C-alpha cells in the first residue's frame, strides 16, 4: 500500500517536473508545478511530516502558484520567449552537464547509503513538535525570518511600483 502511494507520488512529481520545463505556455508550467507540489506533500506525509505537508499545500500550492498565475495573466504573454535562440550551444551543453550532475548525485546516493531508519518518537512531525522546536531552539532565526519577510514585502512594493512620470 505504502509503496503504491509512493510510486504514484513519484510519478506525479517527475511528470510535473518535466512539465514545468517542457511546456511552452507558462500557464501549463505553473499547473505542472502545482502537480509537483501536491505529489511532494504526499511524500511528506509518508515521511511523518504532517505539519510540513500542510505548509506545502497552504503556502506553496495556495499562495505561490496563485501568485505565479496572477503574474502570467497580468503580463498577457504566450510563451514569453523570442523566436531565435541566440545561444546555440547552451541547450546541448546544459543537457550534458545536467546528465553528468545527475549521474554524480545518484552515484553518491547509492554508494553512500546511510544506516537504517531510526524509530521516531510518537508525535514526531506534528505542528506541536515543530512549533516547540521553532519557539525554543530556533527562536532567533524565526524572528529574523519575520524581518526578512517584512523586508521582502517592502522591496516588492518599491520595485513593483510604476515608474515615476518624468
Amino acid at each position, binding site marked *: 500500500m505504502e*509503496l503504491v502511494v*509512493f510510486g504514484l507520488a*513519484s510519478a506525479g*512529481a517527475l511528470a510535473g*517536473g518535466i512539465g*514545468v*520545463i517542457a511546456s511552452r505556455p*507558462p500557464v501549463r508550467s*505553473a499547473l505542472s*508545478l502545482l502537480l*509537483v507540489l501536491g505529489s*511532494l506533500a504526499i*511524500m*511528506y506525509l*509518508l*515521511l*511523518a*511530516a504532517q505539519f*510540513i505537508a500542510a*505548509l*506545502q499545500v497552504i503556502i*506553496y500550492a495556495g*499562495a*505561490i502558484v496563485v*501568485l*505565479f498565475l496572477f*503574474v502570467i495573466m497580468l*503580463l498577457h504573454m504566450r*510563451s*514569453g*520567449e*523570442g523566436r531565435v*535562440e541566440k545561444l546555440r550551444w*547552451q541547450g546541448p551543453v*546544459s*543537457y550534458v552537464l*545536467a546528465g553528468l550532475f*545527475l549521474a554524480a*548525485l545518484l552515484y553518491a*546516493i*547509492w554508494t553512500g*547509503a546511510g*544506516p537504517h*531508519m*531510526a*524509530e*521516531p518518537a510518537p508525535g514526531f*512531525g506534528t505542528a506541536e513538535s*515543530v512549533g516547540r522546536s*521553532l519557539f525554543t531552539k530556533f527562536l532567533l532565526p524565526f524572528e529574523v*525570518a519575520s524581518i*526578512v*519577510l517584512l*523586508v521582502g*514585502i517592502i522591496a*516588492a*512594493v518599491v*520595485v*513593483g511600483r*510604476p515608474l515615476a512620470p518624468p
Partner: protein
Amino acid sequence: MIPVPYYLTISAVLFTVGMAGVLVRRNALVIFMAIELMLNSVNLTFVAFARQLAAIEGQVAVFFVIVIAAVEVVVGLAIIIAIFRARSTVDIDDVDLLRG
C-alpha cells in the same frame, strides 16, 4: 517503509530537471518555477533525512526554506514586472546590459 535512497533519487532527479530548466528556458517566469522545483527537491531531502535520523531540525529547516522561498518569489516577481514594464519582454536573453 520506503528506504530513504528512493526519496533521495526522486529529489536528485527533480533537482536536475529544475537545473536544466534554468539553463535552457528563456522565460523568466518559467526559470523562476524551475528554481522553485529545485528548492522543493532540497526540501524533500531535508524531510527524508529528518525521518531517517528522527531529528525534527530537518523539518524546521524546511520551514525556513519555505519562508525564504515565499519572500524570494514575491521580490522576484516584482522584478520581473518591473523589467516587463521597462522593456516589454520577459526573455532574459534580452536583458544583457552587463555584456563585456
